[in-house]
């Protein structure tokens, strides 16, 4: 299951919890990824909608890897500049599988996780259309 938080993720508490849970399980490498909201485009922050049933469905294939453990958290609602909206951590025996899985996981997440991002500018919530990517088989209901 993906851990979801309203607003910014409690990064340090979450990392601590995951670290304590898996540090004695024989994994030699823990590689987290922390996605921080940057002060770009004059935004005050970002905001997110999640489709949770499908997000958990998508995550299933990453939850039961034979040689790695992956944990993940994501925000919904408003996340201010300097706060974290996406957090994950890959645990592997050796570092090289860890690098590989982290990159594959994050790229799959960016392409396929059912999450929608909005810029928060002057109190308005504006869909980040320029950064959004079509899911596979998009346009299937388009009129010919």
């Amino acid at each position, binding site marked *: 299951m993906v851990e979801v938080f309203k607003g910014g993720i409690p990064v340090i508490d979450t990392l601590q919890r995951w670290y304590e849970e898996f540090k004695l399980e024989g994994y030699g490498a823990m590689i987290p990824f922390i*996605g921080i909201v940057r002060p770009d485009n004059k935004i005050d922050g970002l905001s997110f909608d999640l489709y949770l049933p499908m997000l958990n469905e998508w995550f299933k294939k990453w939850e039961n890897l034979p040689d790695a453990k992956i944990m993940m958290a994501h925000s919904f609602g408003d996340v201010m500049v300097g706060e974290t909206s996406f957090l994950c951590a890959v645990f592997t025996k050796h570092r090289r599988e860890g690098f590989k899985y982290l990159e594959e996981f994050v790229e799959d997440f960016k392409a*396929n996780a*059912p999450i929608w991002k909005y810029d928060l500018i002057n109190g308005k919530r504006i869909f980040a259309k320029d950064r959004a*990517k079509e899911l596979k088989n998009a346009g299937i209901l388009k009129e010919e």
Partner: protein
Amino acid sequence: MVRVEFLGPIGKEPMEIDVKTLKELKEILNKDENLKEWLKNSAVAVNEKIVSSLDVKLKDGDRVAILPPVCGG
């Protein structure tokens, strides 16, 4: 009846519609001019699985989701 949800920025309330196939659903949804634009780049999930063809039979209680372009993280 099938429940249709419009995710993220589409900003439309869920609907309960009496349709038997995605083809039928397509006809109905395209009548809404605003929705029509979103359908051009939205994917469709039936019971949380993205579908690749319109030849999907819908049965009572199925959940259809209209998924516009995504951007997590």
